[in-house]
């Protein structure tokens, strides 16, 4: 019995190595696991806050309307009532925060109007569409249509 143990004793060495390795792993793992991991699920809960805190670029309709009454009124009366200001004017959050810091540029009417109103059989039939080449013979759209209320009187 004693000699069997003696002749198997060398096996304890790799076993000890493995166990030490395992123990080191468990200790290190417990020490460096990220804070808040697993609070809501298998992920770092604090990242939700990071994701929320990203800067906003589009201020949103309400912010524009708060100052620009005239345009807002005009728009509300016409077919573009539901088109958001920034859909044409681009992201204006910085302008909304501090109007002097960034002046919005006027959009290029030629590409802007055509993007929505150029004829395409894939567009819903009821949506107003024209073949621009035939429709305005090279004239700018806003010669006739006021973008904020495009209806012709």
């Amino acid at each position: 019995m004693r000699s069997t143990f003696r002749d198997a004793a060398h096996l304890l060495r790799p076993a000890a190595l493995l166990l030490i390795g395992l123990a080191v792993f468990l200790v290190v793992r417990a020490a460096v696991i990220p804070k808040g991991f697993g609070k809501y699920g298998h992920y770092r809960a604090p990242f939700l806050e990071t994701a929320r805190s990203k800067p906003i670029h589009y201020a949103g309709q309400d912010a524009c309307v708060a100052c620009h009454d005239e345009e807002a009124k005009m728009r509300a009366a016409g077919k573009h009532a539901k088109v958001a200001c920034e859909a044409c004017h681009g992201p204006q959050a910085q302008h909304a925060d501090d109007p002097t810091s960034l002046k919005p540029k006027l959009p290029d009417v030629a590409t802007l109007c055509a993007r929505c109103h150029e004829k395409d059989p894939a567009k819903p039939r009821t949506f107003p569409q024209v073949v621009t080449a035939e429709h305005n013979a090279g004239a700018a759209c806003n010669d006739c249509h006021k973008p904020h209320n495009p209806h012709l009187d």
Partner: protein
Amino acid sequence: MMIPGVDGFMYPNEVELQWSILIVLYPYITGLVAGAFILASLERVFKVEAVRPTYRLALLTALAFLLVAPLPLQLHLGHPERSFEMYLTPHTSSAMAMFGFVYLWYLTVVLLLEIWLDYRADIVHMSKTTTGVTRLVYKVLTLGSDNVSEAARRVDDKVGYVITVIGIPSAFMLHGYVGFIFGSVKANPWWSTPLMPVVFLFSAMVSGIAAVLVLYMAAMKVKRLPIDMRCVDTIAKYLFYTFVIDFTLEMLDLIHRTYEADESFRSLDFMVHTRLWASHVLLQIGAGTVVPLLLLAATQLRRFAPGARKAIYSITSCLILVGIFAMRWNVVIGGQLFSKSFLGYTSYKMGLVTREGLLPAVALMLLPFAIFFVLIKLLPPWQHSEANAAD
């Protein structure tokens, strides 16, 4: 408007392939590990005495490739420095999260331990007969025990046997699970099949056995030692049987897909006949499967002269190794060439000296041979064959 390399419609984010040639190497290398180990266990567990000369060689081959196996994965990651997170917070629902644990288990508990037990007598002997740094290396490898008495060796042998028995399912797991990584992606019809782990497993065995066979013959040639014909004949026989099963499974998969012809079939069929024609039909099925199978079948049916057999075995093994590589390629790369809209195809643009390019891939494929070279210097596997040759 046309995107170069794209035919038809791809979702815009699909144009670029996400998994490169490095991910092709990963199942290829782990497959060689699993296959080589299973060959070694033939001798140990199933008492196939004839393959004894390759026992140690197979173990060292497995170790050399296993040490390299995680490197292509590591190199492929966008953030290699974060890979330890797999151990910190393994996601239990992810097949991939298992990799680190399966790998470490297989490396330490199975392979290193089995090699240590088998080589212990040699290590102790060398630690007493060598000098200098070499002596120190062997001293460390003895782990401080020089008990190599008859009784101690008997204990080693018994424990080694148990480890091999544990090792076989471990090898199955190591590679079967690689197949599961692909086979469980329901979004990808080219991958998603329950046959994938089984096909991966058998192709792994085929490639591993072929690798050891060709390495053994090459090593004997270099060492100017006679090749043990009984040994290579037996290996070739097992190679043939395994290959028949592997081929059957792959054909079953193919026939099943063709017969069922689900919504993805038309798209995948077109891909196989165009972009994958060379690598799938010609290389994988033709040169990599049908030809070697016919050659192996011929050696089973007719008794060729030893010289001819050696030549056939070498050619067959090399063809198989190329064919299985092509198979991995077709799975990994092929699975990303078609759109999940089934309306278009993209192409794989492999870099050359980029991080995931051809050069690092070649280097990673050569690295196991360098490790293998060091291993056979450190732990010469020849004694059995020399003893055999002396008979």
